[in-house]
């Protein structure tokens, strides 16, 4: 949309092109840094070294497992190398078939070999045990778990079925008898039957599941690591010129000894260097003295120059500012510096703690103030006194009462200015009221304005004739009503009698003003008018006469 704009104040933010370039550069920079970080993580020397270490370890472990199996079989049951090789082949084949690593399979075989079982029995039992362990512990069962469960099965092979019955196997008496009394081969066959009755081909089927596939990948990585480890070991031996691991170990020990010797020699060298510097300083000092003496001889006053030379030379070797050796820190200075730094740290920490404490205290204070304010608001809401004042103010009240209530309210509100004003107004109002009261009290009786009024003669004549009496009788006493009167006569007689009675009646009205009787009633509106300064408008006769008697 078209928009016209007049800038009142402006600010320079830099050109957009520069901004864009800057943004692009920083983005590129970040990208490169990120890439660098990932590359460093992937190909960093430390990561490579760690991997190499792990690979060598894995390779050595595999070798140890092989050695163990070999040892157990050859020593325990006198197995031949071909029998051992057959077991190794089985381990490799089972690894490719299921989810258990060759290392774990070898471990299982070794564990069975500890019970002096024949290689054929081991070969028969191993697949069933792998099914059993993977079924019970999953694809990622550890070496330790393989060991434990193999031990349990081997016990079952010897007639102790607890390990099997505990996990739910039901072994009938016939099988038990066969295991107890049968040959090794029969016992193994019986155990395999028991295991296969529940877990046959579990290890094989597990390979097709996602978890199994993950395990296969892990196994591949482990194999790769082992292979790399073997390669590393070979390369180390080639580099060191050794032909076996033992030779390599010897070479490493020699290297460590030599390194230790080098360190010792370095320490000796350091000590010798320090002595050299000390000697050097003495020599310089001596030279300086010689120069001083020489200059003294020439000029007679060369102390200053000599002192300066000595000072600079001293600082060169001893450290201190102004000399070439200003950056050399002595142990004492270092200790002093460390002490100072520690002191600074301690002070900073205490300052920070004090600051935190202050902030916390301030927060607490603010929270309290807030709570107090909230309470104040709540109490104001529930202030009964205030409520009663407000309610009273809504009612019909006199001016003085209104002022009194307003004053009370302003005092409650702690509004001093308004309270002073209202107090003044109230005082003035009371004064005026007193004036009115005294004025009214001293006001003389007002004469009856109707005192000279008389009934017209024609009306008297008409009434007398209508009622059948004379005018004199009519004026002297009330008309005596007789039953012979017509309705009109009755009305006329009663009206006349009422008027006559009203004329004779004394009207005595007392009006109270602030508790005192005053001589008349004053309309409230008139009072209000008078309070506002227009007392002239007061109509004292507007409703009643002052206290007194209305004459007949």
């Amino acid at each position, binding site marked *: *949309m*078209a*928009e*016209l*704009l*007049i*800038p*009142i*104040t*402006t*600010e*320079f*933010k*830099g*050109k*957009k092109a*520069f*901004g864009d370039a800057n943004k692009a550069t920083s983005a590129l920079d970040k990208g490169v840094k990120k890439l660098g970080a990932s590359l460093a993580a992937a190909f960093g020397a430390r990561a490579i070294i760690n991997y190499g270490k792990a690979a060598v370890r894995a390779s050595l472990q595999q070798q140890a497992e092989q050695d163990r199996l070999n040892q157990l079989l050859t020593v325990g049951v006198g197995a031949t190398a071909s029998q051992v090789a057959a077991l190794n082949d089985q381990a490799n084949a089972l690894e490719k078939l299921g989810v258990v690593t060759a290392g774990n399979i070898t471990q299982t075989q070794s564990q069975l070999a500890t019970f002096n079982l024949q290689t054929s029995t081991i070969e028969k039992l191993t697949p069933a045990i792998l099914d059993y362990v993977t079924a019970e512990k999953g694809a990622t069962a550890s070496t330790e778990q393989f060991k434990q469960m193999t031990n349990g099965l081997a016990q079952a092979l010897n007639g102790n079925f607890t390990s099997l019955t505990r996990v739910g196997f039901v072994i009938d008496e016939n099988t038990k008898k066969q295991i107890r009394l049968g040959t090794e081969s029969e016992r193994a066959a019986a155990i395999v039957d028991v295991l296969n009755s529940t877990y046959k081909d579990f290890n094989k089927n597990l390979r097709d599941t996602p978890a199994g596939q993950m395990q296969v990948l892990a196994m591949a990585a482990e194999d790769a690591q082992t292979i790399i480890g073997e390669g590393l070991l070979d390369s180390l031996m080639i580099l060191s010129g050794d032909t076996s691991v033992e030779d390599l170990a010897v070479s490493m020990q020699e290297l460590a000894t030599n390194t230790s010797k080098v360190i010792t020699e370095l320490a000796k060298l350091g000590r010798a260097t320090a002595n050299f510097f000390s000697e050097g300083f003495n020599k310089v000092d001596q030279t300086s003295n010689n120069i001083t003496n020489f200059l003294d001889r020439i000029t007679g006053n060369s102390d200053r120059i000599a002192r300066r030379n000595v000072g600079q030379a001293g600082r060169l070797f001893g450290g201190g500012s102004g000399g070439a050796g200003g950056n050399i820190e002595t142990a004492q200075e270092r200790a002093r510096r460390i002490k100072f730094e520690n002191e600074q740290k301690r002070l900073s920490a205490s300052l920070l703690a004090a600051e935190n404490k202050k902030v916390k205290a301030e927060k607490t204070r603010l929270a309290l103030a807030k709570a107090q304010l909230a309470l104040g608001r709540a109490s104001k809401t529930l202030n009964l006194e205030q409520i009663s004042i407000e309610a009273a103010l809504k009612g019909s009240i006199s001016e003085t009462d209104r002022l009194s209530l307003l004053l009370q309210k302003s005092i409650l509100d702690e509004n001093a200015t308004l309270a002073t004003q209202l107090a003044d107004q109230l005082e003035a109002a009371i004064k005026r009221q007193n004036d009115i009261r005294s004025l009214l009290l001293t006001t003389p009786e007002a004469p009856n304005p109707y005192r000279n009024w008389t009934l017209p003669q024609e009306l008297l004549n008409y009434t007398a004739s209508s009622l059948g009496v004379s005018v004199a009788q009519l004026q002297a006493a009330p008309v005596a009503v007789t039953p012979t009167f017509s309705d009109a006569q009755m009305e006329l007689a009663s009206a006349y009698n009422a008027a006559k009675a009203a004329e004779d009646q004394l009207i005595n009205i007392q009006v109270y003003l602030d508790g005192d009787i005053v001589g008349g009633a004053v309309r409230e509106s008139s009072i209000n008018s008078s309070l506002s300064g227009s007392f002239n408008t007061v109509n004292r006769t507007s409703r009643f006469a002052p206290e007194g008697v209305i004459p007949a």
Partner: protein
Amino acid sequence: MPTELRGANALRKALRKFDPDLDKEVRGEMVGFLKPLVKKARGYMPANSSMPSNFVGTSVAGGFPKYDATISRRGVGYKLTPTKPNRQGWIATSSIRNKTAGGAIFETSGRKSGNTGNFTPRLEGQLVGSGKMQGRAMFRAYKEDEGKARAGVIKALEKAAAKFNAKGI
């Protein structure tokens, strides 16, 4: 010419964040200086009856913009938030603006071609100012104001900055 006030934007941001009351106060003061200017500019917007009849009406999308006195007057206002940077990298931290297309046409018509043709001479009011600061309503009011509003706004901002700094937040 507008005045560069470095840090005005940062000041407003800081006030909004740390001292909203002072921000409200300075905003009020700025509005106090800009509102008369806006009012005056709106006053220079002619009634529909004074405009060429074919120019008066309600704008439709895609058509030539029309002038409606009420809408155009409402379109003149002030802005206290910073604009986007222009191609030279400047932002306006406070400004007055004429947002409607019809109002803008009335404002600027004849700037380049002069008071010629069939349309411009029929427009009420006179072009005041020079160059890009030439106009019939908003620019005219700004010219006639002689920089008083600008000075007031700057003073208000400076005062707020001094107050803010004195508080030491």
